[in-house]
């Protein structure tokens, strides 16, 4: 019994440290640690003529990458602005488009080939 406790305690300790580290990462990594967020590159995928997630919330200064997984082409274009704030070229399968959001706000966008495809980026 004594021997077993001796074996268990380092495991428990390791697990506790790991959980603590994960929490620290969740709190600081997502909300305040911009470098970590940028390294993860929050993304929107295009599958079956839909943007997913349809609404994505990010921190100011983050870049978003859209990736087209469909076999048809799509595009990503801001609804508003003249000229529009961002507009991709036609994205073929596996093509990506990135944009960095430097100001807080809610940004609506759509696919210029299939305008029923719409999405929203909330920048905080």
């Amino acid at each position, binding site marked *: 019994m004594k021997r077993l406790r001796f074996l268990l305690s380092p495991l428990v300790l390791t697990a506790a440290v790991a959980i603590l580290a994960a929490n620290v990462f969740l709190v600081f990594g997502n909300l305040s640690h911009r470098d970590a967020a940028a390294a993860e590159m929050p993304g929107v995928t295009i599958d079956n*003529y839909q943007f997913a997630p349809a609404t994505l919330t990010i921190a100011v200064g983050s870049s978003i990458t859209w990736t087209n997984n469909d076999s048809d082409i799509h595009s990503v274009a801001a609804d508003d602005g003249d000229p529009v704030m961002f507009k991709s070229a*036609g994205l073929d399968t596996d093509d990506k488009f990135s944009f960095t959001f430097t100001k807080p706000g809610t940004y609506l966008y759509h696919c210029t080939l299939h305008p029923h495809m719409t999405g929203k980026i909330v920048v905080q």
Partner: protein
Amino acid sequence: MTKLLIPETGINRRRVLSCMAWAGAGVLWTVSGGVPRSLLIGDADAAGGSLTFAQISDTHIGFNKDANPHPENTMTEAVARIRAAKPSPSFVLHTGDITHLSKPGQFDAAQQIIKGVGSDVHYVPGEHDWLDDGVAYKQRHGAGTKGDGWYSFDAQGVHFIALVNVVGFKAGALSSLGSDQLAWLKDDVSGLSASTPIVVFAHIPLWAVYPDWGWGTQDSAEALSYLGRFGSVTVLNGHIHQVLQKVEGNVAFHTAMSTAYPQPAPGAAASPGPLKLPADKLRTVLGVREVAYVEGQQPLALTDATLSA
């Protein structure tokens, strides 16, 4: 077998197979008495039209996915069919999505292939031809057109109107013609006698085929209201890569097959993405259309022919 507008009774297996064959090669249009009817290309002889023209659509040069890795080959087959059609079409209407990605090299490759028809080709752009805001398209096909590329012309007493409904998409909305084009259209037809047969062609359907997938045009009703006084109006569209038709009063609507790849029937799949069929089935859903017009007779005769027929 060839009259699309005549309901068939007693459908047998042969009939079903011939219907399937429509799903892909080309359509011959015969304008007889001002009303276009489609016929299978091989049967257009019987129509004896005084004007015959062909429709080709959605060639998507540059597409290279599983649904058809070589659309240039199937487009070449479609062009060969049009060239071989009897009677020989006076000209060809291309109802858009010439290219897949609006690239200059794709437009040039398509033009090289379509030269094989040996007659004039009248184009309208598809949304795939407008990814660069129409620069490459207009360089090649914009001469003599108005606005974003709309125009009209006359042939054998039939008035042809090319409309553009792939510009200025608004989020969440169907495509539109826009007020400038509508004003032009109203003026364009104002001096015509009501007995003039009208053929309208545009890429996206000018009727609400399936709005959930963007298969319709927001302001098409206004456009059609300018054509309401004409005895015969035929509307030819592409975009949905399959033959669908509808008759509403004096207006007959027809969509055409693609020469590149098929798309699902409206609402039949999660999305309108390209349908991949077994390789030996592909040519049964690709095709062209020929139309023949005979003065003094009633409808235009349409022939939809697949590449496999």
